[in-house]
């Protein structure tokens, strides 16, 4: 799960043993290691992407959808392993196809969205675990799938993440007004000429890619936190839609930095530390009177 103590020469488990200064020196030294720099960068990119798309995801009530996408990754990885491919390469196309198929089902059936998503969520998890049982020598291990390993992020993963963040920012930036109108009132957006179906599909594809690319670092269980928590905290801090999006992306990135620092300082698992920081920020925002903060 990405505990950092493996990488340091003199592991120390509690800061009270040493002076605070020595602890900080240790953390600084730690972040001079390439794998830690990659992990930090990976966390920031994942946090920013999750926050950016998460801002629209929660308003369109797709939070559970992103959770389902995360859990379905287990199925994608299992299929990749069974077919003898690198699971990382299978995961991205699988996530996109899976997301589009789920969207198709949601649009074509008249069942309740959460009920249908629950069926897909639990059944994809079940099938994924059954398929994994045929590969009892899976090196990655189920724990890494569930919780991710941000310390194992490679340069290739970072390049993918940078490109994807650029695409997400470009897409949201260039279609911002249409995205807002579509989120507010779909018929009004259609009347204005917004291509709702194309915009919605593009958003779902990007969300699937973000989830797919982040699984390795964050894991199946925690990925939806990166999408949902910063956006919810940003909502409590925002009155303007544009501020809300920027704050959401910013909180995602900042949470990753603080989470990684705390993880290094206290020798905690990195992914869960970042999520714990996101939760801490969210709880803090609950204490702030919304009207006074970031008022235009």
């Amino acid at each position: 799960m990405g505990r950092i103590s493996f990488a340091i020469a003199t592991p120390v488990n509690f800061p009270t043993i040493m002076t605070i200064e020595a602890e900080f020196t240790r953390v600084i030294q730690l972040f001079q290691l390439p794998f830690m720099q990659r992990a930090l960068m990976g966390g920031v990119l994942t946090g920013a992407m999750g926050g950016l798309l998460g801002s629209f995801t929660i308003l369109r009530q797709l939070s559970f959808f992103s959770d389902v996408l995360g859990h379905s990754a287990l199925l994608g990885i299992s299929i990749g392993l069974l077919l003898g491919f690198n699971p990382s390469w299978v995961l991205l196309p699988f996530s996109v196809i899976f997301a589009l198929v789920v969207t198709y089902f949601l649009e074509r059936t008249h069942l309740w969205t959460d009920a249908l998503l629950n069926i897909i969520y639990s059944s994809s998890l079940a099938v994924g675990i059954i398929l994994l049982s045929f590969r009892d020598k899976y090196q990655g291990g189920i724990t890494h799938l569930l919780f991710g390993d941000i310390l194992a992020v490679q340069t290739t993963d970072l390049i993918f993440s940078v490109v994807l963040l650029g695409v997400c920012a470009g897409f949201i930036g260039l279609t911002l007004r249409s995205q807002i109108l579509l989120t507010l009132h779909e018929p009004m957006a259609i009347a204005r000429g917004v291509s709702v179906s194309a915009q919605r599909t593009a958003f779902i594809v990007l969300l699937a890619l973000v989830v797919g690319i982040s699984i390795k670092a964050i894991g199946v269980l925690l990925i939806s936190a990166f999408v949902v928590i910063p956006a919810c905290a940003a909502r409590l801090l925002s009155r303007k839609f544009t501020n809300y999006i920027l704050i959401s992306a910013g909180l995602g990135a900042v949470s990753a930095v603080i989470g990684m620092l705390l993880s290094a300082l206290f020798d905690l698992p990195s992914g869960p530390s970042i999520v714990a920081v996101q939760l801490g920020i969210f709880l803090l925002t609950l204490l702030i009177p919304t009207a006074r903060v970031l008022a235009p």
Partner: protein
Amino acid sequence: MNDPVLVVQGLTVYRGAHPAVQEVSFTVPAGTDTAIIGPNGAGKSTLIQAVLGILPRQAGQVSVLGHPLSAKGYLPAAVRQQIAYLPQNFLLDRRIPITVSELVGLGWDRVGPQLPWVGGRVRHQAVRAALTQVEAWRLRDQLVSSLSGGETKRVLLAYCLVRPRLLLILDEAPAGLDALGESEFYQLLHQLKREQGWAILQISHDLEMVRQSCDRVLCMNRTLLCQGAPDHALSPEQLSLAYGSDFVRYRHTCQLPHHHDY
């Protein structure tokens, strides 16, 4: 007669296996106010949504400013800019963080990819002018979700007039307002119509307002039962076709003390 802004020919729209709108044809000339009346379930909202391309149509043609609406609901962006639509219930999720000026600004934006900061100053001035015109500039920084029903309708009218338009389509726009709010809404709407030269196509259940303010009336119950000037379309004979004779008798009884003309 002015050139038609909207031409609808033989429009048929299905809801499930049954036609909700059947073989409806009419035109809306420029600068005129056309009301669609009819009982609940008559297909009025379906008609409007098909005209806008929100719902698919099974047969017929729709043409806006001389441009045909494609089967998939496509109209050129320049034509879409000339249309404003206010839905029956603008129920905004209260959790969506959007201010009044942001909402009105969305009415100014053109559709298609653009940098978010494009048109900043011009856009701001247009938003200010529109909000001032509906006397809602003081609300500019308020969350839309915090507005009263009447304030929301004013802001939505500002959304319509933030850019010059030729066609305004309203689906029971004053729904949810009390009598005073409804009266104020219509007063503002008709004042703006005179100033802006809008052609209006609106669904209404307020037959007195229709009689006094509209140029033409379409009376429908799935199909078009009659169309024409208010005096003709709102005659007891025509109304009984759409609403039934009981409704007309009841209406007649209610209006006798006021010496109305039917």
